[in-house]
């Protein structure tokens, strides 16, 4: 599997370690209550089809990527720096 890193170009997926669903970026605060934290830690959509997920470029530039991949065909449709995804969510541009 080849992951097209936004800065470094196409890289073998073996250079990365896989963390899991990109929903892990949305960590709840204590104010959200124990159920929200439980669901964040333990429950997953685990979809058939497009899945946004976190890959860590351990053997490369050590950046985190958000990869959009089809879990049935293994085709990767989109790769972004996780930093850019987080910044966009926070509404900023830096």
């Amino acid at each position, binding site marked *: *599997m080849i992951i097209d890193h936004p800065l470094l170009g196409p890289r*073998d*997926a*073996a250079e990365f*370690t*896989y963390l*899991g*669903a990109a929903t892990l970026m949305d960590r709840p605060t204590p104010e959200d209550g124990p*159920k929200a934290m*439980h*669901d964040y*830690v*333990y*429950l*997953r*959509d*685990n*979809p*058939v089809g497009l*899945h946004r*997920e976190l890959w860590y470029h351990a053997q490369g530039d050590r950046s985190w990527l958000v990869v959009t*991949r089809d*879990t*049935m*065909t*293994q085709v990767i449709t989109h790769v972004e720096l996780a930093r850019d995804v987080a910044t966009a969510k926070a509404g900023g541009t830096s």
Partner: protein
Amino acid sequence: MKYNAWNIFRQGLTGNRGWKEAWRKAEPKPEYDIIVVGGGGHGLATAYYLAAKHGKHRVAVIEKGWIGGGNAGRNTTIVRSNYLLAGNQPFYELSMKLWEGLEQELNYNVMMSQRGMLNLLHSDAQRDAGVRRANAMIMSGADGALLDRDELEQNYPFLDFDNARFPIKAGLLQRRAGTARHDAVVWGYARAADQLGVDIIENCEVTGFQITDGLCTGVETSRGPIKAAKTAVCVAGSSGRVMAMAGMRLPIESFALQAFVSEGLKPVLPTAFSFGAGHFYVSQSDKGGLVFGGDLDAYNTYAQRGSLDIVQDVAECAVAVMPSIGRARLLRSWGGLMDMSMDGSPFIDQTHIDGLYFNGGWCYGGFKATPASGFCYAHLLATGQPLAVAAEYRLDRTMSGAMIDEKGQGAHPNRH
């Protein structure tokens, strides 16, 4: 017709025209008492024990493809009861005892071969952990023995005992463990369940659940709606997509596990064995092929195939522990869908929806659990109460904190 020597002889004399099909191709009825979704080993075992032990005959098994076409049709066949934790080990020992009587119970040859399972131990700390696990096995009524290096060298001369990085210090052996023919288990349970009146409905995919006000009254399928007082899902790696139709998220993610068979070789392995310094395990089939596997592919998938870097990893582990395996040629490889849970242990439980039950999260260890999974699921469905050995397999244990985490890896499904 019973399978026995007399019938083989009698049928042989009359042209073998009297054999009946092993199970009927049942047409779905509009209603059953209990629907089992998933015609794999666990689903068919559940239906069999519902009929045989609880007198429930208005039962249907609904399978989207052909029975046993999922993980029951593609596993590495090892059965064992060598777990550590109290929430697991008694359950797997129940399964082991059911395996030991299974061929008589089902009147079907599942090629049960109690050849033994050996876990290699490569350091003093690992040996101590092995002793703890052997004691847990013995406390549950199973058998466990610690072999020292001299005993291992006699029976496994082909292992790399003096490897500088991971020498072999000892081994934990379960003599009653072994292998069984995976397809035969499916067919044996199917035939026995069918003879007790269970309808086995193939090529029938569940497309939705009939749920109103927190009550499930049946399923929608590709062959029409079917009503049931109780709907029992057990679909292994497809758990996520099936339970999503009930609006449920699960503490489960699906990953591919690859497994391999070598060319046929003369008998070399006296037991199955596993490597203690890397994830690799192997047994030898009756046809002579070495059947082996190792790590999961790390990323969520439903593709039932994996990547080549895992093939390389598994081969490296194999050659490290058993150098001579490097001369064997790889004949066949395949991948299956593993329902990896958040603590590496399964669920057999009611859901929060009345009439809807869930059995899943078997990770890569579901085959050995087949009899006990069916036995315990049937008991829960028939009586509303779990059996003691399965009492900790609750869906809410992630909330209550009663995790059953053998490897101590935490909430990372692909690390268990």
